[in-house]
């Protein structure tokens, strides 16, 4: 066997071996009382955008496509979910302090305007998570209104 073949074979064996290490799933299935929709008014079309483009990384419910069974894809996603949820968890939005809720709404607006969210590595695969101009405007306007309504409640 040539060296190249040996290296390839070794690589394959490693790849096969790591398939058995599956990360835990982030799926709880219920709408929490702390869900963002219970704290501020989230119209259906806004919620739909969040669900398609953000909830996989920013909620307690990730939709898992088939290829997350292939490692290290599943690990990468698990890592993004962990980091993303630390930053912003739509399912636990209601448990944030009023000040943090307002900050998060500002950050949502900023991330959409800057185009930093959803992550580029995600939209490469999830084409429908790529936001159109209209969807971006919809989210930005909503975030502003929601922020003002929280301000007035304080």
């Amino acid at each position, binding site marked *: 066997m040539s060296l190249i073949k040996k290296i390839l074979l070794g*690589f*394959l064996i490693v790849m*096969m071996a790591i398939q058995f290490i599956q990360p835990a799933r982030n799926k709880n299935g219920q709408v929490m009382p702390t869900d963002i929709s219970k704290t501020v008014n989230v119209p259906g079309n806004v919620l739909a955008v969040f669900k398609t483009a953000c909830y996989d990384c920013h909620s307690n419910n990730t939709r898992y496509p088939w*290829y997350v069974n*292939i490692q290290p894809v599943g690990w990468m996603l698990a890592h993004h979910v962990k980091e993303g949820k630390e930053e912003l968890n739509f399912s636990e939005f209601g448990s944030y302090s009023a*000040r943090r809720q307002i900050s998060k709404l500002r950050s949502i607006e*900023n991330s959409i305007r800057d185009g930093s969210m959803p992550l580029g590595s995600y939209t490469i695969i999830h084409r429908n998570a790529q936001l159109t101009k209209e969807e971006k405007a919809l989210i930005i306007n909503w975030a502003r209104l929601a922020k003002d309504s929280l301000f007035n409640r304080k």
Partner: protein
Amino acid sequence: MKYFLLIAAFNTIILIACNNANSTTSKSENNVETKKETPVQETNTTTPVKDILTGYIQLKNALIADNGSDAAAAGNSMVGAFQKFDKSILAGNQKKTYEDVEDDAREHAEHIGKNGGNITHQREHFDMLSKDVYELVKAFNAGQALYQDSCPMYNGGKGATWLSETKEIKNPYFGKKMPSCGMVTEELK
């Protein structure tokens, strides 16, 4: 065999795609304790929020100078100041204000600390952080001369505020592009 090769190739592509999105943000977490040498006007009076305020002023001055990595270092030193803060001695309005502000402000400082390569993003968080530090100074007193400034142009014309130890306007949101946008809106003592 062919099938596995395909999957292996696919994996590699995904690995590369996922990693390069992160690599820009995850640097520069190494210097939480380093105090930058930027001179801050000291006066005799002390305030419990002194370290937080010192970090904030360093941060503001780094942003005025368009220096993202100094800003990150100052953000990290603010995180350290929040960690060291002894809130067990607080009571009444000070306790209430500190608890209201703490999580939010610390998170902004962390973000600024992690985004040394992205000054635009640092400024977004600095905008929100400035409001938190203002609340702290109001509740605890500044212990030094301090001004609240405001520039109506940042934020797509919605405006933003910041705190400064000097009366002269130097804008941290636009840096060298527009250093003089703003005016003093309040003198805090």
